[in-house]
């Protein structure tokens, strides 16, 4: 039904009609502009001046393609992106040679050529689609006195064309749009390059964020953490002296409270630093960092990490925080007796399996508390699979592609 509705999309058919009708004057315009220019330049090709004229024709085709892109945008709200030009210089030779060397200009010229030839044909087809049903059906009126077999056939064809015509117009529109996108849009290579650039930019910015977090952790370690440790040590000394000299018990209890607070602050600051970036992850990798995580879990966790090599820092970090979150969830919600964390790598993939023998019933849909994990893993192009039958424990499988260039 939806495809039928798509075929008989009135607005689309009207837009297609106007685009195709405009093809007629446009085609005449391109023929007037390009025919003499191309003819002369091809004729003069043996003389060098022909190349110059041809180059001008290519540049004109570029401008014509601009008009065509504008038409597409107006008619169909389609933004056909032009491949960026790569000027090699500003000198006369590059001015002449650039269009000749640039495939984009050639594709644009080809499109203009196709429009000039097939534009009128498209316009004629569209006009026929609109006019034929009217004339064929009304033939019964203007030829009422001879109702013979031909008239009946004509009227039947007229009714049939009411249904066929729109389909034909829609199909013609699609073909024209597809041609335009193929010849006026950026080439496949460019799209791939763009995807690669986007990927690289994302990886680099993830790395930059990672570096920044490491720096903050270092600053904390060298600054506030060290100073706080000194404060706690000095309070410890004061406590010992008071104990030895048998001082004022009131002062003793004040110092003792301060000492306890300082120690608690050290632990809190350490947890904070670990949440920003665990130093052990940078220094010793996933295995060591995760053993620190599981040792602090209330449920006994069996950890097994076997990696071929260390993944890139931002992948390690995302994997670390995802597992931390999963392990925290197990101790908070799973009501489990045992948990297992298994980390493996192949040449191309990092595989993480976190499971428990708890109550299960984790809602695997987005927005159910697994969002954080999902976000972390999808940000590094990974996938998350959750299997959690009610009463049957929970297994979460993470799979992350490893990019060679970023490995260590």
């Amino acid at each position: 039904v939806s495809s039928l509705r798509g075929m008989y999309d009135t607005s689309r058919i009207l837009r297609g009609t106007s685009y195709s009708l405009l093809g007629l004057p446009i085609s005449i315009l391109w023929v007037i502009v390009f025919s003499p220019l191309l003819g002369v330049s091809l004729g003069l090709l043996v003389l060098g001046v022909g190349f110059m004229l041809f180059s001008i024709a290519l540049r004109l085709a570029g401008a014509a393609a601009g008009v065509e892109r504008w038409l597409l945008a107006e008619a169909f709200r389609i933004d056909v992106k032009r491949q960026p030009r790569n000027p090699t210089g500003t000198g006369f030779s590059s001015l002449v040679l650039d269009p000749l060397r640039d495939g984009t200009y050639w594709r644009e010229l080809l499109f203009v050529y196709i429009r000039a030839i097939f534009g009128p044909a498209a316009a004629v087809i569209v006009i026929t689609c609109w006019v034929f049903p009217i004339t064929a059906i009304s033939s019964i009126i203007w030829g009422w006195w001879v109702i013979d077999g031909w008239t009946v056939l004509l009227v039947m064809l007229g009714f049939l064309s009411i249904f066929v015509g729109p389909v034909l117009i829609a199909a013609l529109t699609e073909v024209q749009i597809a041609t335009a996108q193929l010849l006026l849009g950026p080439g496949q290579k460019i799209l791939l390059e763009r995807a690669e650039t986007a990927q690289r930019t994302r990886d680099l910015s993830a790395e930059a964020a990672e570096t920044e977090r490491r720096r903050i952790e270092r600053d904390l370690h060298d600054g506030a953490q060290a100073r706080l440790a000194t404060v706690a040590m000095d309070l410890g000394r004061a406590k010992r002296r008071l104990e030895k000299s048998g001082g004022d018990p009131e002062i003793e209890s004040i110092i003792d409270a301060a000492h306890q607070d300082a120690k608690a602050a050290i632990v809190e600051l350490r947890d904070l630093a670990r949440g920003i970036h665990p130093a052990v992850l940078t220094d010793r990798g996933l295995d060591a960092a995760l053993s620190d995580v599981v040792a602090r879990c209330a449920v006994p966790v069996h950890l097994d990490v076997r990696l071929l090599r260390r993944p890139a820092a931002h992948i390690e970090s995302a994997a670390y925080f995802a597992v931390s979150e999963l392990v925290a969830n197990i101790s908070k919600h799973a009501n489990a007796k045992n948990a297992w964390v298994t980390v493996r790598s192949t040449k191309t993939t990092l595989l993480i399996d976190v499971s428990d023998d708890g109550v299960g019933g984790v809602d695997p849909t987005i927005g159910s508390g697994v969002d954080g994990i999902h976000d972390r893993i999808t940000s590094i192009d990974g996938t998350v699979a959750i299997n959690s039958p009610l009463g049957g424990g929970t297994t979460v499988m993470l799979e992350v592609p490893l990019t060679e260039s970023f490995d260590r």
Partner: protein
Amino acid sequence: MRVIIIEDSVLLREGIARLLEDEGIEVAGVAGDAQTFKVLWEQTRPDISIVDVRMPPTHTDEGIRASVELRETHPDAKILVLSQYVEERYAKELLADGHGGVGYLLKERIADVTEFVEAVTRVAAGGTALDPEVVAQLFARRRNPIDALTPREGEVLSLMAQGFTNAAIAEQLIVSQGAVEKHTSSIFAKLMLEPSATDHRRVLAVLQWLDR
């Protein structure tokens, strides 16, 4: 007792020195990186070196590597390593030579002066001091949980692994030394370990068993 302190943060270095001097322990020298550590050790021949793990130039595990290297040439060097975080492999690397006289504690333990000084004294005397968190990690690492032991025996095993003597364990658990001895022989029987003569041997036996 004479100690040297190898720690790149001046703040912490001075703090530890003040603390030890308060307890009547002589600080024979201080240094801020691994190279100077070896030179300083040769010059001062201290009873014990207190060494930070993370030091210049790479700020990763210089302290551990320098300590292991030093004990290769001088097995009698006693070293207490301080770390910002727990990494059981650091502990294993330190304990690997089996000579005793090593310790591995989290930095934040220094604030508990009594316990810290006790650990320093114990290591200087050839014993072992392992941070409770290291022991907890080693327990977590085991694929088969230690089901055979009673909860009390588990506590005793953990304290044994940290390097405490039976007397110290008895004091911490507030039971008699005889009761601790009963627990330890029961643990050794259940885990099928040879009863060990010294406390350090005992730590090694327990760690090897945990690592199995």
